[in-house]
């Protein structure tokens, strides 16, 4: 399975805390999240029950943490992934956490995220497709799910979540500006280099044409029919 470059999202800033958080606490939060999902969105698990139970590795590219997700109609499981359990994984989905959450809620199109390379998939594609279709068949509302998991404190949790989302958006805006400020000098230089490379390529093509024209006068015509080396792509 592949390691991707880290994505520069506000979740990236949470890494120092996540790295130092007690494992049992992260596992507990994951367990609670999955229990809520299983309770609220039972049809997702029923829809996918047509497949055998399988496990996925969810790799948010902005977190120093990977998740083990077992899809099973009756006993689904979500927890931090452990070293050495790649063997039991049917497929890996990698991408920035915001994109993964949008996919979960059906607010972004999975294919479009994949075409643009925001998401990467390795392993058994049909299981990822089945999960995507099952999730997309439901209207998943994460805000309500989180509020529900807080029980009587649900309304307060919803307010806190709203505030967190506002801070998140501000952070994202600031981080984008920071990234632009850091990369724009390099991007400008690269653009200049690209223009020069294109100009040189055009000059080379002209030179090549001139050489071909000159050679045409001296070349001996080949006898027989030309061999077409068309072939289907070689096996990997």
């Amino acid at each position, binding site marked *: 399975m592949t390691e991707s470059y880290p994505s520069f999202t506000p979740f990236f800033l949470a890494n120092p805390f996540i790295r130092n958080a007690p494992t049992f606490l992260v596992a507990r939060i994951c367990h609670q999240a999955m229990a809520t999902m299983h309770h609220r969105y039972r049809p997702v698990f029923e829809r996918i029950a047509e497949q055998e139970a399988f496990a996925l590795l969810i790799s948010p590219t902005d977190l120093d943490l990977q998740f083990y997700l077992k899809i099973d109609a009756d006993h689904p499981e979500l927890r931090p992934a452990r070293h050495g359990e790649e063997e039991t994984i049917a497929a890996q989905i990698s991408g920035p956490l915001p994109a993964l959450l949008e996919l979960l809620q059906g607010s972004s*199109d999975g*294919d479009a995220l994949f075409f643009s390379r925001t998401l*990467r998939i390795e392993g058994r594609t049909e299981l990822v497709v089945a999960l995507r279709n099952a999730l997309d068949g439901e209207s998943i509302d994460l805000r309500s799910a989180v509020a529900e998991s807080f029980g009587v404190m649900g309304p307060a949790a919803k307010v806190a979540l709203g505030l967190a989302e506002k801070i998140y958006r501000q952070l994202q805006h600031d981080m984008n500006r920071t990234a632009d400020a850091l990369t724009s000098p390099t991007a400008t230089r690269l653009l200049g280099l690209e223009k020069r490379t294109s100009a040189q390529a055009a000059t080379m093509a002209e030179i090549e044409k001139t050489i071909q024209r000159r050679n045409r006068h001296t070349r001996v015509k080949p006898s027989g029919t030309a061999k077409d080396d068309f072939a289907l792509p070689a096996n990997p």
Partner: protein
Amino acid sequence: MELVCPAGTPASLHAAVAAGADVVYCGFRDATNARNFPGLNFSRAELRDAVEHAHKHGVHVYLACNTYPQAGAEEIWHKAVDDAVAIGIDAIILADIGLLRYARDRHPDARLHLSVQASASNEEAIRFYHQEFGVRRVVLPRVLSLDEIRTLNQRIQVETEVFAFGGMCVMAEGRCSLSSYATGESPNMNGVCSPAAHVHYEERGDATVSRLGNFTINIYDSDEKVGYPTLCKGRFRAMDKSGYLFEEPTSLDVTAILPELADAGVSALKIEGRQRGKAYISQVVGAFRASLDKIAKGQHDARSKLSTLSEGQSDTTGAYRRNWQ
């Protein structure tokens, strides 16, 4: 023009209805339709609820039953037709002549449409389907130019539906065996082109390798958009040059030529993508609804904002404006 929109799940159907579809087309969860992907499509109970919801909002529902029955297993296809009629589907989209005959004999009042899978692209073929099976609409293959569609519409007795947005096909619809060659399964018989079980992606450094069965279909550089590995959209090497020999991974978008399609006598526009998510359906259906409403008011905006949703993230008007023969 009627806006015919896809739905692979009940949630997608709700999204299509909310976004302004005139018609939503769906399939049963089996090999009777050409989008037989895992976790996709409707159970009988889901379709019954979906039809009720759509009709409540004045939207029609069509059932795609457009694969070719396998010898000895015709019962599955017959049952799909019977159940669709019992559920109250507004039209059944069929391709196989045996199935068309079954539908006509058993359900003479059912409205039958001819699927693109039948590949009926000329006057005589369409007249045959109309006279023999009472077909009321034909979904035209994506091989015809605007002029050809206009001429056809002047000569035939049935409505025409054309593709407006979504994945392209190599213009051999209903007759393509490329997927079957690589995987043993085809859209015609199994309802799936390049089945996901045979699709593999591999990250190799910055490059993404896509494979179908034992074939490497493409190797995408880090700055390239990724596509679904179908053989027709593979990048191959021939005569020391590599490129897209059959077709590029690009998608159809007719936003720019909507008035011309209306002028050519087209009755309905079909959006492809029952395998896509509800976010895609909301955006594409919403954009086409807005465009058609503008045209109804005598306005037209030829610009499309849908390219980020397309395979290859680029679009084409396909054969409608073709300058080749």
